[in-house]
């Protein structure tokens, strides 16, 4: 291989734990806008068992590069979480995050300049990269960890054509409705346990002249994705996980009657002028509202409910109390029909490796271990969770993250990965976004929206 022309940052990192954690501490105190006491770990007890990495041989002085879409301020906890591993092995882990990750990773892989490891947020992208032949299968140690700590549905998402490539890393739970516990209590509203109760509550709120829901799907060049989450959540509830899988894999047409029904159910909320868009305008305003700002009207009482993932806790302004009886909290989006626990829609990253150097494999092994999940939980502020069942929920600082982790660890809860991340890029990151945006912005009819997505599905 070519000589690596990477800068060596070992001097900065050799300073060790102390320096890194001081940095982390001040970063967290300034950016933990989610409130909830962004406590970071004290550092002294962050030691791990070095034994699993000894079998990779002497790795002193090796460098492993990681490329991700996770940037400031969420990047610092990642960097800190490698410190125990670096101390065990003497490996220097170089972390690079970029908001242009997806496009840039493709450029780098195509140019032969792939990083050692990339955190890939979509199984669809993973499959594409595997198709280029650049990704190497996960080593046995990683596979053993994943078998031990993850639900098999997660392992399946890291598997392409029967070969296991990528272990899951972080996760986020998407099936949450944010609300204000204090406002609910004042008004005497109860948290709905079923879909019907939720609609009844919405009607009750609408009858007072207020708008119960607020939403926003604008996200720059990814505008539309929050709407895809809505649709997926409802398909998972109304049609069930089997139909969901068939739909995502295009074994049934995209405009199957059950999907049309699901989107109409979503429309019953998002396109109901009595329900939306609290504090933000007419139905149309959903299309232009930044998804990050869309829940904020809850704080001033002009909106009551906002469906968004657990990571939304980072969007509440500094000083907002996120807790079960605070300013804001989340309840699981209730199931449709009577039976069972609410299904969980989620997302997450996967660690793909582009070479099989021992140092790379050692880091892969560490990242798929329960040790890493617990270290990461301790150095992270609110807004991080993993579906790793070895994660001790007590290590999580935020109540919302604990709620999410409980859902992931609940063996009865059906988990499904965010479908738009599983579909081909031109659908899941293209036509579906655009069409659902049209559905809201231009009131395009449901049937036509889904038919147009169906027609855009790539032939093969």
């Amino acid at each position, binding site marked *: 291989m070519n000589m690596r022309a990477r800068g060596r940052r070992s001097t900065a990192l050799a300073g060790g734990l102390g320096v890194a954690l001081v940095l982390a501490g001040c970063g967290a105190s300034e950016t933990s806008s989610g409130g909830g006491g962004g406590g970071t770990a004290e550092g002294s007890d962050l030691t791990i068992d070095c034994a699993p990495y000894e079998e990779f041989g002497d790795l002193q002085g090796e460098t492993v590069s990681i490329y991700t879409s996770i940037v400031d301020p969420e990047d610092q906890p990642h960097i800190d979480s490698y410190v125990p591993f670096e101390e065990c092995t003497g490996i220097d882990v170089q972390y690079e995050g970029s908001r242009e990750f997806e496009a840039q990773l493709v450029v780098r892989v195509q140019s032969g300049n792939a990083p050692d490891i990339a955190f890939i947020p979509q199984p669809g992208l993973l499959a594409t990269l595997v198709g280029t032949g650049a990704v190497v299968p996960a080593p046995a140690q990683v596979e053993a960890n994943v078998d031990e700590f993850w639900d098999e549905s997660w392992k399946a998402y890291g598997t392409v054509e029967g070969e296991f490539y990528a272990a899951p890393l972080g996760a986020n739970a998407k099936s949450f409705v944010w609300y204000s516990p204090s406002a609910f209590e004042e008004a005497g509203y109860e948290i709905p346990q079923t879909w019907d109760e939720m609609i009844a509550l919405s009607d009750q709120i609408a009858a007072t002249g207020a708008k119960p829901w607020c939403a926003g799907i604008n996200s720059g060049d990814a505008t539309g994705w929050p709407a895809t989450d809505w649709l997926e959540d409802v398909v998972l509830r109304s049609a069930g996980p089997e139909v969901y899988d068939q739909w995502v894999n295009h074994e049934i047409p995209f405009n199957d009657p059950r999907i049309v029904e699901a989107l109409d159910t979503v429309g019953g909320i998002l396109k109901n002028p009595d329900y939306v868009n609290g504090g933000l305008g007419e139905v149309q305003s959903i299309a232009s509202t930044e998804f990050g700002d869309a829940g904020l009207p809850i704080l001033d009482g002009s909106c009551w409910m906002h469906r968004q993932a657990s990571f939304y806790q980072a969007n509440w302004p500094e000083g907002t109390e996120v807790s079960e009886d605070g300013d804001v909290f989340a309840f699981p989006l209730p199931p449709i029909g009577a039976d069972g626990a609410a299904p969980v829609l989620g997302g997450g990253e996967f660690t793909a490796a582009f070479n099989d150097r021992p140092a790379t494999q050692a880091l892969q092994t560490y990242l798929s271990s329960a040790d890493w999940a617990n270290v990461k939980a301790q150095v992270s502020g609110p807004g991080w969770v993993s579906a790793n069942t070895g994660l001790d929920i007590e290590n999580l600082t935020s109540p919302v993250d604990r709620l999410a982790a409980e859902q992931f660890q609940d063996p009865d809860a059906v988990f499904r990965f965010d479908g738009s991340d599983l579909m081909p890029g031109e659908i899941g990151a293209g036509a579906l976004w*655009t069409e659902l945006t049209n559905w809201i912005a231009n009131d395009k009819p449901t049937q036509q929206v889904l038919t147009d997505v169906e027609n855009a599905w790539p032939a093969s």
Partner: protein
Amino acid sequence: MQWFLDASTTGHKFALMGFAILLFAAVMGALLFAVDRPRRVPNWVVAAGFLGPTLLLLLVGLVYPALATVRGSFYGRDGSEFVGLDNYATVFTEDNFQTVLLNTALWVVLVPLVTTGLGLVYAYLVDRTRFESLAKALVFLPMAISMVGASVIWKFVYEYRPDQPGVRQIGLLNQLLVLVGIEPQQFLLNAPSNTFYLIVVMIWIQAGFAMTVLSAAIKAIPDDVIEAARLDGVSGLQMFRYVTVPSIRPALVVVLTTVAIVTLKVFDVVRTMTGGQFGTSVVANEFYVQAFRQFNFGLGAALAVLLFVLVIPIVVYNVRQLRLAEEIR
């Protein structure tokens, strides 16, 4: 060897920078010295000395990728299967791409004309006034701002909030609308007018360039020409129309051309403000989306080739100007 590749301290970086510039100067110096030495060398040898490094860089950095792109446009998604003109057929027949083409046409006509017009009028108006340097600095300012910065700036102009009690506007334009009693508008959402609001941003960024170059050209008009016209009783608008504009014609062509080409390539503005949604995409943005987000390299390449083709009229126009200039000389 490592010293030349890895620079991690500030001193080292500056040393490396100095070395790079010196190396460059030494190579160029040696090259020029070599072609200048022999007493009677053919012109083309001298020209090769002056032009060689430039042409070499362009061949490797632009010509080769451009040719690879042309080739790629006839292949499928991952470049392995020959598909003939399929990608072009897609571009010209699908509704989405029709909008993209129309938008690109709007951009490439409106941005250069309005930018040049505004730059010219402004440069003429503030020329040799007491506030000239301040006035120019103000219009030049957007040039100093990156695209990311510019898109944030315009977010605070176009941002929409509904007209409801307790909700305040964040966008300046909607605040003005509310003040005069009009409903706030979704400037970036409603096609086709949203394309025009994006074009405004591009004009805002580019006007400083036009103004600067044109102002320089205005100052270069010989005094006696103006004097003569003045003595003929020409003044005000007529002076602008019959003396200033014809005198700076070459500069106008340069500015129009440059801005037109920059506009054809623009994708930052569209990408950061609407992401090409709501019917605002242009060819350059669509290329990026297709090639790097949807992994459809073939279709992306076809769009890029379309850009090459779109620039042909501009090249032809400039060649004719070049010919004219040659004849005059």
